[in-house]
């Protein structure tokens, strides 16, 4: 193997246009006007240089800092972990990094947005750079960037995304799941039940004579009924059940690991509770009843849509038998 270095051209070094003293002044002023903290340590982790950014962001007296160990000057630093990290920089001669995404901050520094952000300390991206000098051995330069803004906006974005995800699943009026999310859930529960050979039942229910309610009490009265009925039914369900608004006054409940007997029992309880719980709207008592159709997953069903169709037919049957009752899809088939 030839000496590779002799073969490649050396990187051109710019000849400074000013003398060394001027260059030193320029460099030091740049360092002091940077909006980034600069801290230089010797190989024993004692502070050699710190720039104005750090001086104004800490309450420490400049004279006392130089020569001190970084760990006694900044007692908040995790000593064992940081020592190991700093050693890697010295020994491997490679840069090392610490992002706010893993550690919000290393140095407890106040930030310039105390009102609009909720964190007490400045969020930081820290970079640890190996510095080689002619004398006094190796040094480490720590750059501390203020990323409070980026951190704040990222947090807000995540919060907003979580809210949007929640809103996209919820029905605005009744605050139960909307049809789309309910249907996605059914698709998943259907696949799960098929895969693990588990039971699965469905209840579809519809308010009786809802159109008359709207005519008698106005749409606001109708809305109130939808809200109250949703809330009332929610109290009767298990956590694993998925309750959603299927359409205008039609609701649907997914019951994982439940056979038709269990589903009928629940449907009857819902029917009974609603019929015996009068609602009041503008001092007027409204009596609400529901009709319910129940279907259990069987071998005859080849997709989740068919299960909905079965429960829907049972619901239709309950309506035609006089409303305020439960009908089982299995009865229809036989």
């Amino acid at each position, binding site marked *: 193997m030839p000496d*590779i270095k002799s073969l490649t051209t*050396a990187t051109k070094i710019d000849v400074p246009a000013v003398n060394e003293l001027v260059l030193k002044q320029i460099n030091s002023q740049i360092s002091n006007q940077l909006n980034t903290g600069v801290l230089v340590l010797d190989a024993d982790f004692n502070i050699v240089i710190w720039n104005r950014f750090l001086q104004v962001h800490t309450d420490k007296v400049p004279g006392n800092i130089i020569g001190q160990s970084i760990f006694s000057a900044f007692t908040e630093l995790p000593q064992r972990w940081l020592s190991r990290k700093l050693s*890697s920089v010295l*020994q491997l001669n490679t840069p*090392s990094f610490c*992002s706010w995404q893993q550690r919000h901050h290393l140095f407890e520094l106040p930030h310039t947005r105390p009102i609009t952000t909720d964190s007490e300390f400045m969020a930081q991206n820290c970079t640890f750079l190996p510095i080689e000098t002619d004398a006094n051995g190796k040094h480490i330069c720590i750059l501390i960037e203020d990323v409070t803004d980026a951190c704040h906006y990222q947090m807000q974005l995540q919060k907003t995304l979580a809210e949007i995800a929640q809103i996209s699943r919820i029905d605005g009026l009744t605050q139960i799941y909307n049809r789309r999310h309910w249907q996605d859930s059914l698709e998943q529960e259907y696949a799960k039940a098929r895969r693990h050979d588990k039971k699965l039942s469905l209840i579809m229910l519809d308010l009786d004579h809802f159109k008359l309610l709207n005519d008698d009490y106005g749409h606001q009265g109708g809305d109130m009924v939808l809200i109250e009925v949703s809330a009332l039914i929610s109290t009767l369900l298990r956590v694993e059940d998925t309750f959603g608004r299927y359409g205008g006054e039609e609701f649907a409940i997914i019951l994982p690991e439940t056979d038709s007997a269990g589903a009928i029992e629940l449907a009857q309880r819902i029917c009974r509770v609603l019929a015996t719980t009068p609602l009041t709207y503008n001092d007027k008592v409204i009596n609400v009843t529901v009709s319910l159709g129940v279907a259990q997953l069987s071998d005859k069903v080849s997709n989740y849509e068919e299960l909905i169709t079965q429960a829907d037919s049972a619901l239709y049957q309950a309506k035609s038998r006089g409303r305020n009752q439960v009908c089982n899809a299995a009865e229809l088939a036989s």
Partner: protein
Amino acid sequence: MNEFHLTEDQQDCLQELINIAMGQASDQLARYLNTFVYLKVPSIESVAAEDLMKTLSQQKNTMAVVSQGFFGFEGIRGEALLVYQEEDSGRIADLLGYEPDELSQDEQLIDISSILTTTFLNVFAQQINNQLSYNAPKLLPNVQEILSEHLQQMPFTWDLALKVNINYQVTDYSFNCNMILLIPETAITNIKHVLDRILEEY
């Protein structure tokens, strides 16, 4: 034949440079970790952009990807991806000499990736008389969906990727990962010039 593909001589030369870089990097690493580091000769492949996309999306058990940008003189720049296959990262903290509760698993992965990438690329840069700077390493979230998306959204279009398969074995600890160097067109041309310069004198 793609004009960015390396000739056999260029490929051999590059393999040699990478072997040296990897050897020195693992030596440094062994000293730092204070343990014996066994390193197989790394295999390198150059992969066309579309093929890499295919390979990576087929790797179902990919657990994490850490990305780190690098840039140096003479237009040599790119992005290093460290791809971890299995969930054997639980002991990286031990390996690095940290207490497990001192840092999260994400931070451990980022740390070891940064050390592997920068020690290797530093020595590699020295070989071609260059010096590299690095961006902060970043853990790509939700690897499965994001990786191919990330590759498509790179700030530069890249045509050739250098896939370096690294297999590190540290005493009583086996540790595997793939390093993938994504290099844009102009940087490939520049690397080829450097390789040709070396070959001319050989």
